[in-house]
């Protein structure tokens, strides 16, 4: 009798331990009930990208977007602002505001956000608060504060290069705060290298030749981006061509149309065709003119 009671007690204890472990696991992976980040993920709109991300970006979390060259900043800003628009739209308790924190090093180029351009991009300029601290330390502090603020839709921290102070500890702090508050925290790294960080995903954004313009053969068409998911916590990476649609406020897949541009064969050079992520297979050699990017919707 006493033995069986002891057995039962042990069983109960074991069950409790298992439950506790499961809770801890859930909490660790950010899926705990208390986390605002466990809310619905933020879909980009492009089906293949969303499928690869298993529904979309984790809303309360840190994501890094980097542009390899300084002149790619336009494309990267377009992607980041598109995400911010979607984060404000997703109807998450009336969150709308976007805080844009920029490090002084990122401002030396002299470029700033242009309200008229923002409006055409689909973002109401009056929702943006620009924060321009005098040093990187101030910028990191401001980003931490903003990531804590549950009333925000998105936070963008614009930095340049790979400053030592913005290390894995700083990114983890940002990540944890964003997860608590549910803010979509984005790091816009201008001309930076890949670097270990606590970010849930890391994207590389390059500009891509625009789509055709139906009205004017020589005109500039709708913008397109070449998007590479370089790192993803949940595993899969990939490469896509997307276009931001300011009307529907979604990212759409853009077919890389094989436009022949007699003057500029460089447009079809191999390295421009297939930027791989961390995929195993290297890009195959392509013909001179033919464009085989029919697999634009494919996730690796």
């Amino acid at each position: 009798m006493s033995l069986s009671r002891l057995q039962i007690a042990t069983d109960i204890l074991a069950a409790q331990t298992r439950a506790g472990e499961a809770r801890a696991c859930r909490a660790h992976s950010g899926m705990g009930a208390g986390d605002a980040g466990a809310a619905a993920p933020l879909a980009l709109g492009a089906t293949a990208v969303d499928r690869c991300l298993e529904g979309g970006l984790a809303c309360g979390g840190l994501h890094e977007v980097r542009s390899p060259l300084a002149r790619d900043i336009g494309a990267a800003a377009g992607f980041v602002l598109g995400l911010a628009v979607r984060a404000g739209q997703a109807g998450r308790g009336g969150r709308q505001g976007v805080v844009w924190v920029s490090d002084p090093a990122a401002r030396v180029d002299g470029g700033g956000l242009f309200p008229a351009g923002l409006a055409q991009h689909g973002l109401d300029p009056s929702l943006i608060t620009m924060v321009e601290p005098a040093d990187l330390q101030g910028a990191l502090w401001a980003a931490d504060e903003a990531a804590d603020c549950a009333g925000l839709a998105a936070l963008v921290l614009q930095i340049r290069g790979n400053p030592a102070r913005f290390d894995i500890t700083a990114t983890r702090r940002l990540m944890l705060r964003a997860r608590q508050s549910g803010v979509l925290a984005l790091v816009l790294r201008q001309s930076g290298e890949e670097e270990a960080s606590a970010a849930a995903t890391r994207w590389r954004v390059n500009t891509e030749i625009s789509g055709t313009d139906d009205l004017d053969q020589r005109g500039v068409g709708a913008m397109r981006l070449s998007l590479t998911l370089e790192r993803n916590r949940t595993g899969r990476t990939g490469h896509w061509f997307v276009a931001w649609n300011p009307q529907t406020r979604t990212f759409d897949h853009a077919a890389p149309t094989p436009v022949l541009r007699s003057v500029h064969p460089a447009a079809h050079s191999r390295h421009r065709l297939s930027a791989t992520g961390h995929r195993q297979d290297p890009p195959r050699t392509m013909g001179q003119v033919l464009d085989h990017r029919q697999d634009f919707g494919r996730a690796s």
Partner: protein
Amino acid sequence: MRIVALDERARARGLRRDQTLGDARALAPDLDCRPADPEGDRALLLKLAGWCERYTPLVALDAAAEAAGSHGLFMDITGCAHLLGGEAGLVADLEARLCAQGFSVRLCLADTPGAAWAMARHGEARILPEGAHAAAIEPLGLSALRLEPSLVTALGRVGLKTVGCIARLPRAPLAARFGARLLQRLDQALGREAEALSPLMPVAELSTERRFAEPVSQHDEISHVIAALAAGLIEPLERRGLGLRRGRIRLFRVDGHVGELAIQTARPLRDARVIARLFEERIAGLHDDLDAGFGFDLIRLDVVHADPFAGVQADLVAGAGGGEHDHDALIDRLGARLGTGRVQRFVLADTHIPERSFGRLPAARLQPGAGRGRAAAGLALAAVPQDEGLPEGIVTRPLILFERPEPLQTIAEVPDGPPLKFRWRGVSYEVARSEGPERIACEWWRDGRGARTRDYFRVEDSQGYRFWLFRHGLYGRETGEPAWYMHGLFA
């Protein structure tokens, strides 16, 4: 060179003002003399006036003394004396502290500023009882009335040498001969005419302070005091239905230095914890730490500006609708630490010149909720601009705009067409596609006659980079060699 000011010991050796330096050196060979520094003296006087605000918020500079080449301050201590043990206590405390700082002062407390001025400079009494000022100044010389020296001399010539003489004479002939100024000064001294003091600092709407027998200098102690002061403000704010918009902390150091920290909030605030936290951020944002020196013996929290506080109906669903509020609180915190000028929002201006079409104002200065479409500061707030006749979804404006357009070297097919190639920041780009021109005329009413028209082109290079360029000046009409500039980057 002449002596402008001297101390008691020099006076005891027989020196006096306006003496030449040579004479003074002959009398006192060991004389220590410095060149006069009127600006430094004035700065010191202003600092001293700031320090005197520990006794009363109404401290004014003495313009009459300044005109005569000496220095003085007026303080209106109505309703303040009881805090320091009555008038005698206040005067004793003030004198002791000023002497400890190394000043030699003469002070007098009287019913009117004029009488106090006269007694401080020409009389002996330090505190005149109520109503005694008229009798007290009667025996004094006329220079005690803050009159110009020429007027005093003129009055002396006709035998009028004391205040009492004039006070008993008929007024009309006096005014006719010596001007209305004389009677005005007399009436001000006697209290027949009110004299307003204009305080140096705007008087706070509310203030609360704490004095310490033992000066505090530790950071935690100071923040503790600030939190306690903020808590003490809440009740009076509630009673008046107000909320804090601008506040300041004044830290009175033992040696007379007064530190000041100001905060500004985006919406009326009535939460002690938040107020204290904003000051914390302000202190943390200082480049050098609070210079506590030997410690602060008085810390005061002023509400410089307050606005009616709109009560908020709490939502039944916890957390819902609090977003906007959180956002404003964030702006306050960022502004307190980084400086309000570094936290900005866009406001739109009514012009087509791109770099002038918007401005950035401190977010805390915009009205609460201004981000949602109310006008502020004379500029229309960002109502989404849509070019007329342009289908939605067409992008004509870049996301990134350069504050100063950057010069380009270009090759164009024809002088008034789009460029074929251009060089920007040391890199060559080949233009694959282009759209334009979009012509934006200059604003002749601002830039004058010589200003040039801009032709904007949206171009894409062979690799897909999209730029916003413009040609400055119309070829053949405004200039023979139009210059090209880079102005923005598209997504």
